[in-house]
């Protein structure tokens, strides 16, 4: 199957203008709430700087902190596992489930398990995975993937959800009331929570000093799953470590304000020890993170706390939808993480940006996202991943611009045929011309005017 490039998928998304406008306006509203929440804190910019420095410090001492975390977690009675890659992560999770002989589990949101395609892996082995975040349950019913890491079903309208619930939960056809549909999901998922013996959660922060980890939700689904289960498996990327408990004061002040403009998520749950009779597991996953750590330009992408503020502010994301990024993590941050996994398959993503820089400004841990997009472009083109035509065009342009005489000559003709500038070819095939006019060609270039008027 041909996977659509970001540009191709975006064009299809935008074809439905009304929905595109709704998507854009809705996410812009989330960004506006984030602005408001951040401006209520006089120390906002200092907090971002603090968070950034803590994360940079963590990245410069990652193996030590991982070992400290492991020792403390083990002392707390938690079993710690290490996975080099997605496959090993999935195997570990499956083996824990198998040990308990269960066929069903509840899972709260974890972008890491999306990254590892855990659901597909377990389903192939006969395990019924129930995503319990409302948005994730909706997209799971529809056999889709989340289009946003914080708002997984933001690409859908309530009519879509109503129809999906009608098919899967037997709600009345045509009922699209969010309150009613949420209640239906509450009843449906309560049953699953009460039955499940195994619960999987993600991890927002793991504290080296105490061995505890923090999971944030608004719905309470992570807690319902974890506290009712006999086995709690928490899956985390190795970059989720923070040195001290007091650092949580910094990160939790930033996370929800950045994500949705909330003061804090409803639940910020700190898991240290299993409750009596319960098993608690933590799976620490590398899956390319040590490779990214070694790339000087891209190391800082590992500071990410998955708040999605960069999604909500991105004018391209808002108008192209998460699925156009064909990766579990979409948006600007996804575009700098994805090439680390597969350069060729994700060569389009660093170009799915105007480099406007808004993403870097909203980032609560000050990742220079737009600069990293620029660096990935250089890296990918140097590796020869550009289409041949683009290489030729760029080489021609670079040659012309290095030769003023040729530039003047080409310009003289160019204002009539306009074929010297890569995006200003005046023919029906040029995408510029599809929905835009060309600039009216002046009689004289500035240099010609200068020569005749000033010299």
């Amino acid at each position, binding site marked *: 199957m041909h996977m659509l490039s*970001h*540009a191709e998928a*975006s*064009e299809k998304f*935008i074809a439905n203008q009304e929905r595109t406008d709704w998507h854009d306006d809705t996410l*812009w509203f989330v960004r506006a709430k984030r602005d408001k929440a*951040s401006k209520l*804190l*006089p120390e*906002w*910019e200092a907090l971002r700087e603090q968070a950034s420095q803590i994360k940079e410090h963590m990245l410069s001492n990652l193996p030590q902190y991982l070992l400290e975390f492991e020792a403390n977690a083990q002392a707390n009675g938690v079993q710690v596992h290490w996975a080099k890659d997605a496959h090993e992560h999935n195997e570990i999770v499956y083996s824990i489930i198998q040990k308990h002989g269960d066929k069903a589990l509840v899972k709260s949101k974890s972008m890491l398990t999306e990254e590892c395609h855990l659901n597909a892996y377990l389903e192939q082995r006969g395990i019924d995975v129930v995503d319990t975040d409302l948005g994730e349950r909706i997209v799971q019913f529809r056999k889709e993937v989340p289009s946003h890491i914080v708002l997984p079903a933001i690409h859908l309208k309530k009519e879509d959800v109503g129809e999906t619930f009608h098919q899967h939960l037997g709600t009345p056809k045509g009922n699209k009331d969010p309150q009613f549909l949420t209640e239906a999901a509450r009843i449906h998922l309560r049953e699953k929570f009460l039955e499940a013996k195994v619960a999987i959660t993600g991890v927002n922060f793991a504290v080296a000093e105490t061995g505890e980890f923090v999971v944030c939700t608004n719905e309470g689904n992570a807690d319902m799953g974890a506290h009712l289960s006999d086995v709690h498996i928490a899956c985390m990327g190795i970059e989720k470590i923070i040195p001290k408990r007091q650092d949580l004061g910094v990160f939790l002040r930033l996370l929800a304000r950045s994500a949705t403009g909330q003061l804090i998520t409803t639940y910020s749950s700190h898991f240290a020890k299993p409750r009596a009779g319960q098993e608690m597991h933590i799976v620490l996953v590398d899956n390319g993170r040590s490779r990214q750590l070694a790339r000087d330009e891209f190391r800082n992408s590992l500071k990410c706390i998955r708040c999605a503020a960069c999604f909500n502010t991105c*004018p*391209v994301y808002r*108008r192209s939808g998460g699925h156009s990024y064909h990766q579990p993590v979409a948006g600007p941050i996804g575009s700098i993480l994805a090439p680390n996994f597969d350069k060729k398959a994700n060569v389009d993503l*660093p*170009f*799915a*940006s*105007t*480099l*406007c*820089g*808004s993403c870097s*400004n909203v980032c609560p841990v000050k990742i220079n996202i737009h600069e990293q997009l*620029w660096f990935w*472009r*250089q890296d*990918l*083109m*140097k590796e020869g991943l550009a289409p041949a035509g*683009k290489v030729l065009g*760029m*080489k021609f*342009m*670079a040659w012309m*611009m*290095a*030769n*003023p005489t040729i*530039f003047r000559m080409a*310009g003289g003709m*160019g204002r009539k045929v306009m074929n010297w*500038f890569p*995006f200003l070819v005046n023919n029906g095939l040029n*995408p510029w011309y*599809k*929905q*835009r*006019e*060309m*600039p009216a*060609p*002046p009689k*004289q*270039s*500035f*240099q010609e*005017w*200068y020569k005749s008027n*000033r010299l």
Partner: protein
Amino acid sequence: MRVALFVPCYIDQFYPQVAIASLELLEKLGCEVTVPAQQTCCGQPMANSGFAHITGGCDTNFETNFSGFDYIVGPSGSCVLHLKEHHPDAKIRASVYEICEFLVDVLKVKSLPAYFPHKVGLHQSCHGQRGLRISSMTELNEKPFSKLTYLLDLVEGCEWKYPERQDECCGFGGTFCVTEEAVSVKMGQDRIQEHQANEVEYIVGADTSCLMHMEGILKRSASNVGVKHIVEILNAHA
């Protein structure tokens, strides 16, 4: 004060009036302005497309043309930002200025003999704004300021308005405008709609590339809203 006027390639070819206004304005303010004749391009279109590794010839040509001046001044935030961030020569990087920041920060302009009795919508081009910090940014918790509105306020008769989303990108983005045509145009249309809601006569900014993109969309819809580079207004005569 010896100032070299940097005229980005597409301004030279398609928007000579912007370069002429820049030249006249700088001279009016007492600068001794040179226009290096063999200048071409800053290299940004190639670099932002991932081809910074082949812009050596461009960089050398720029250096040949622009060495030895006190200041290099150009009417394009994005070209200037590219030079400031990526040109190999430190002296070039340190002496290049976008024209509005040059007027405010170096010339410390307090008044202008300008008259432009029109209502304009201000477009904040991202590279000038976020890259060069020509104005404060809505994402940050910082005191609002703008070198562009400071200058527009010196122009008699000129009324300016921000669009509802004060600093959202117009979607030009260099080659993005053709490689991601659908998103690019949609972004441009959305900016224009907000300016039109403010009933402005012109969309004004400090980066001609953004204006070229929006002008293309405006013309296709036969709109009577025009575009102008801010220097054309700052240089407008009574």
